[in-house]
Structure formats: C-alpha cells, structure tokens
C-alpha cells in the first residue's frame, strides 16, 4: 500500500478545521448613513423568536410599522441565534440583515466594542429621543458598553420566585407569605422537601447552579454587588457580596441534602422549555424564573395553584426586598447596512412606540421596556404579572455588566461557583482571587 498519498490525505484532513479560520470574512464597517428614510425601500430584520405565537406577534408588530411607514417594506427572518448573527454582522453583504435583535444581553459588550452593531448616537440625536425619559436605567445600561450605544432594549425580562401554593398549604406554610430573606428561605425550602429513599419525592428548591435559572448572576442580584471597579478590573475578590452569595448558596445545598444527591435528582428533570419542567410537574416546589414562565405554566395546564413573589434578599438588605434580576432583548442596526436611516425607523418604532411595545408585550408575555408602556392601561396581564412589572421598576434591580469579551467573565465566575458548591474548591477566598485575576487576564487578551 503506498504511503505517500495517504500521508497527504491525512495531513489535509487534519487541517480541514484550520481552513475554517482563514476563510473567515473581513467585513468593513461602513458608517455612512446617507439613505433617505422616506424613499421606497425594503429592509431586512433578523430576530430570534421561533415559537409560532411569538413569530406571529412579531409579524403583527411589523405590519403595524409598515402601515405607519408605507414606504418601508420589512422582510422578516426569524429563528436567528447569536452565532448566526455574529457571522452575518462580520460578513456584511447584500443578503445580510439591516436590523437585528438578540436575546443575549451579555453579548452587547462584544457587539458594541467591536463595532459589530452600528453606533446609534447620531440617530438618537437626530430623532431627539430622550433615553432617560424613555427607558429604565438598568435597561439603558445593558444596551450600551463603555459609552458606546449600539442597541436599544426591546421588551425586558424580570426574574422572581415561583412557588407551589398547594405544597405550601400541605407543609403548613402560609401561601400568601413567601419568604423574604434568604435565612427564611432555607427554612421554607427544608419544610417543602420530602425524601423518598435516597432521593426526593418533592424538593423545596433546586439550589444547584445548573438547576435551570439558578445561575450566579441571577442569585447575585439579591446581594448588593459590583462586578467591576471604576478602572475596569474584576471586583469579585474585593466585594464581599460574592463570597456571601456563594457561602449562602453552598449552605442551602448542604441543608437540602448535599450536592451529589441534588445533582442526581436534577438529571431526572424535564426540559426547561418543555411541559415537564420540574416546577410544572411538582418535582420542585419553588423555582427562580423569568416572567415568561407564567405563559408556560398556562400552556402546560398546571393543576396546582401557582404563586409569584420577588426573590428573597440578603438578611441585611431587607429594605430592598422587591428587587430582582433584569435582562431582555436588544435591537440594533448592522453597520454594513446601506439603509440605516430606514432601519432606524424600524428600531425606533419597535423599541419606543408605546402601542407597539404594549401590544408586543401582551402577545409574548414579556415585561414592556419603556416607562410609558409600563404604565399603559392597555397592558393585559393577570395579577401575578404585576409582581414582575414591579421588579422591573424597582430602583435596586440589577443586571450583569457587559464586558469586551461577552459573558466570558461570568463563565469564569460560575465555573468557580460550581466547583465550590460541589466541594472541589474549599478555599473560597483564594478561588475568588484566582477568578478575579483570570477575568482581568481574559479581558486584557481580548482588548
């Protein structure tokens, strides 16, 4: 058997993956927005929704826009994730989008600093849009990075506590008095936990970081904290809130049965986006989750009585009870677009027009993103939804910070948190110091 051709073939195959990188495209930013927004034109809008009801909602919203702007036609492309979006924004080209939206607010730092999304400042000034009077502060925060505003908020998400009122009653707890501090929370979670063999019949709460929305940044919003110092260095080792949160979370894990037992129970959970979500099946009695869960609960035909409340706060922060974590969808303009003024019209309409925001929020069950829409009498929701509106309006509610390398710093932090909850890391102080150093190095390498 001849060896040589095989060797060449082997070498070729081995480097096939490398070809991918060199053929990466080199898009160039074109910031000239000279197009006439009143001319007849067609723009392309990419979004990430894929459920039929959501797709219909966005199409209805676009139809309203087209009615208000008869000269602009919008071609809507759905089911776009951030990876496809990133590729298209880098590649440019005439088939690319003019207007884009994304669910991942943690990518804004990357999008703004690299210029993947166009700077909206000239458009905002031209339209005399007063952001402070339009959007809550946190929403303004997660749509910009280091002073560069490359996106606007399109609806938002607020995170709170869902609880099974029937399970509360059975455990002798008052279903109208959900726990307000974390120490109360531990007691309630323990009372709601029923063992079965070496597993659970019902678990009060799944505290593990992989228990769906129980991730580091969602917990962190219930402790006053700052991710970065003024000079952009990681603050996770210096700010005691991080150690407090992780210590509390670990104590919760231990008091509910320990990491391994909980993690094994977790593997029996159904899909987060399916009908067999562990809260909906009664496997867990309390769940940290976003406002959209209300729609899922309705669609899954959940039999028990569901209560909603803000998540507990640190014991010494009881005055701030009612705050929570916020995030949402962002909307921006592709810098390669030749129709940026027309694109801006769509962005402005969808993010700031009260009717547009309210009807879209009603349709997909998300929290509206403007002050006007939050107050609107046309907002349709059940009483429980008001809890999330209040969390969204709460002055102490927070979101995660944007960074030049996207969510990489959160990944470093949650990797440490996971090692701590599972007992692989025991020296939390050293772990946090290492994580902080790592975050700083990663950011330096990405700048």
């Amino acid at each position, binding site marked *: 058997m001849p*060896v040589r051709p095989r060797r060449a073939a*082997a070498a070729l195959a*081995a480097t096939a993956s490398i070809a991918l990188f060199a053929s990466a495209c080199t898009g160039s930013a074109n910031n000239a927005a000279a197009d006439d927004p009143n001319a007849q034109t067609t723009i392309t809008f990419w979004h990430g929704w894929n459920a039929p009801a959501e797709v219909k909602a966005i199409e209805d919203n676009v139809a309203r826009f087209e009615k208000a702007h008869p000269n602009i036609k919008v071609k809507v492309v759905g089911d776009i994730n951030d990876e496809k979006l990133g590729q298209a924004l880098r590649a440019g080209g005439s088939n690319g989008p003019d207007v884009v939206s994304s669910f991942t607010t943690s990518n804004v730092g990357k999008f703004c600093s690299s210029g993947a999304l166009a700077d909206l400042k000239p458009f905002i000034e031209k339209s005399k849009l007063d952001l402070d009077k339009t959007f809550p502060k946190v929403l303004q925060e997660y749509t910009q990075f280091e002073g560069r505003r490359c996106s606007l908020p399109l609806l938002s998400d607020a995170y709170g506590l869902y609880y099974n009122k029937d399970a509360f009653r059975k455990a002798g707890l008052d279903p109208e008095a959900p726990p307000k501090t974390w120490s109360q929370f531990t007691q309630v979670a323990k009372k709601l936990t029923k063992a079965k063999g070496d597993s659970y019949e019902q678990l009060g709460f799944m505290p593990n970081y992989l228990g769906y929305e129980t991730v580091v940044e969602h917990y962190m919003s219930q402790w006053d904290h700052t991710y970065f110092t003024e000079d952009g260095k990681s603050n996770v080792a210096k700010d005691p809130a991080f150690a407090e949160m992780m210590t509390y979370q670990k104590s919760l894990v231990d008091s509910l049965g320990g990491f391994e037992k909980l993690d*094994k129970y977790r593997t029996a959970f159904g899909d987060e986006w399916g009908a067999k979500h562990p809260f909906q099946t009664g496997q867990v009695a309390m769940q940290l989750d976003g406002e959209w869960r209300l729609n899922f609960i309705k669609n899954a035909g959940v039999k028990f009585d569901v209560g909603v409340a803000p998540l507990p706060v640190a014991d010494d922060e009881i005055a701030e009870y009612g705050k929570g974590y916020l995030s949402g969808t962002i909307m921006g303009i592709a810098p390669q677009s030749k129709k940026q003024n027309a694109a801006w019209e769509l962005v402005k309409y969808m993010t700031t027009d009260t009717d547009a925001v309210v009807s879209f929020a009603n349709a997909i069950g998300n929290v509206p993103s403007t002050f006007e829409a939050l107050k609107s009498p046309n907002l349709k929701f059940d009483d429980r939804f008001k809890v999330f509106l209040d969390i969204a309006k709460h002055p102490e509610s927070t979101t995660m910070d944007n960074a030049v390398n996207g969510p990489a710093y959160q990944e470093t932090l949650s990797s440490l948190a*996971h090692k701590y909850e599972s007992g692989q890391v025991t020296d939390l102080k050293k772990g946090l110091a290492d994580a902080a150093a790592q975050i700083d*190095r990663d950011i330096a390498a990405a700048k």
Partner: protein
Amino acid sequence: MSTDTLPAKAAAAPAAASPEARNTLRSKRRRNALRTALFMSPWLIGFGFFFAYPLVSTLYFSFMRYDGLNPPTWRGLENWTYVFSDLPKFWPAMQNTLWLAVVMVTCRVVFGLGVGMLITKIKTGAGIFRTLFYLPYLAPPVAATLAFVFLLNPGTGPVNSFLEAVGIPAPSWFNDADWAKPALTVLAVWGIGDLMVIFMAALLDVPKEQYEAAELDGASPWQRFRYVTLPNISPIVLFAVVTGIIGAMQYYTQPIVASKVASGVMGGSGAPFQPGYPDDSTLTLPQLIYSLGFSQFNYGAACVVALVLFALSMAFTALLMRRRGGLIGSGD
C-alpha cells in the same frame, strides 16, 4: 510517450552532444513538466486554496489581535503566551484530546477488529450480524449522542436502573467528570460499523494457504493471529489508527451535545452554555477554538490553538508512519 523512457534518452544525450538535440530535449522536458503541472493543477489549486493559504494565514493571525471586524493589529507573541500560560482551559482541553486520541481510538480499533474477526467466522446468519453491527454507524452523531445521554442518565436511565437492580454501584456517566470520557468512548465503540467493514474485507483477503501452513507447523490460534493475520492486515490497522486519531483530533459534535443535554443548559436566556461539562472533562481543542474565535471574537488566540492542534495531528501521523518502529513494517 511515457516518462519512463526519459532517463534512457537523457543518458544518450551527452553522446550525441549536438546543441540541437540538447534543445529538443530541454523543450521536451519543459513540455513534460508543464503537462505534469497541468494534470496536477486541480489538486495544486485545491492544495493552495484549502491548505497552504489557510495554514499561512492561521500562522499570520496567531500573531495578531483580530476580532473579525476591525483590521488586525500586531501583537507579537501575546496570543501564544496567553494560550499557554493564562488560559486555564487550554491544558484540560489538550489532555482530553490526547486521552481521546489514545484510549478511544485504541478501543475502537480493538473492538472493530474483534467484531470483524467474529463475523468472518460466523457461518450462518452472517448477514444479520453484519447489519446489526453496521447499523449504529448510520445513526447521525447528534441522535446517537442524545440516545446515549438518555440511556446513561444517572437518575432515570435504564442502564443505571439495571446496574442498581443487580447491585453494581452505577456511575453518573455524562454527569461525572471521571466518567464522561469513558461514556463518550462507549458511544464511539458502539458505532464501530465502519471499522468492522474494512477489517472484514482485509481479513477475508488473508491467503488461506498461510493459515494452512501455519497449522501444519503447529501454530496456536494466538500464533496464527500474531504471525499470519496481523502482518497481512497491518496496513489496514494503520489506516484505522491514523484516521481514528484524526477523527479524535476533530472530535466536536458528540461531546458538545452530551454536555449540553447532561447539564440541562440547552439555550434560552439562562446561563450561557459552557462547553466541557462536567468540569471541563469533555472540553476538546476544537471546542476551545470555536469558543475563543466565534463566541469571544478572539481569532488570534483561536489560531494559536488551531496551530497546536495541527502540530499535534502531524506529530501523531509522523510517529505512526515511520518506516521502522512505527505501525507500518519495513516490508510494506
């Protein structure tokens, strides 16, 4: 005319020594070279576009700060020092890739050969067994991985229910850092249909007379395997090992699907998915390249990892292809 006749003519040329003859010869050679180049051109073009150019630009970008949007800027060795000393995920990814290249490939070749030998021996119903062993190979990698995560689920999976019922302590498979790679290996061994087929073809090609002669000389079954079967099929074993290692170097789909499903982070607005769950035990170099380049917009560092992966593949291949001491015998 064939090129084989050239040396003879060339040897005769100095004797003729006439300038004209020399010119004719030179132009013939040039024509021949041109013709060779013409016939090779599709390969040359492909080689240039898909191998040489990407390789050179990967090297170039490994010294650059490049996010895919803004013009690259010179960074010297910064990307290299970042990857080797400051990127904590690099060494686990490297170890995992090496582990898979050695353990997974060995298991696949041993099982593929074993099944191939068994099936060539079976007289009745061979077709059914061949189909049964080949079928798993046809399952799409994502579907196969999903099925294995389901089967090996520590809480609800039938495998662990069975193991617990018979009193064997069941591992957590894809949810345990020590068992995640063995679980992937089990999945890879399950899909050995491709190897089984080529080994079967090779085994059936071994001359029967050699076995008869060996038997007459009193060779035991092991000796017959060691001194008759193995030397005859060694080129095929080499092929299986080299392609297997290259496959292991590019291993991406199965670990990423397994860790996504096992960790429960499938997407949505919750935590961004971190490849390598649990605890970086299934993180491979291609996953690291993807996450550095495409999700962190750090092409420079991604290129460094890509070059490391390339060097690793070349080193493995060179080691196995050595004429002496490698897998291929000097007689081949």
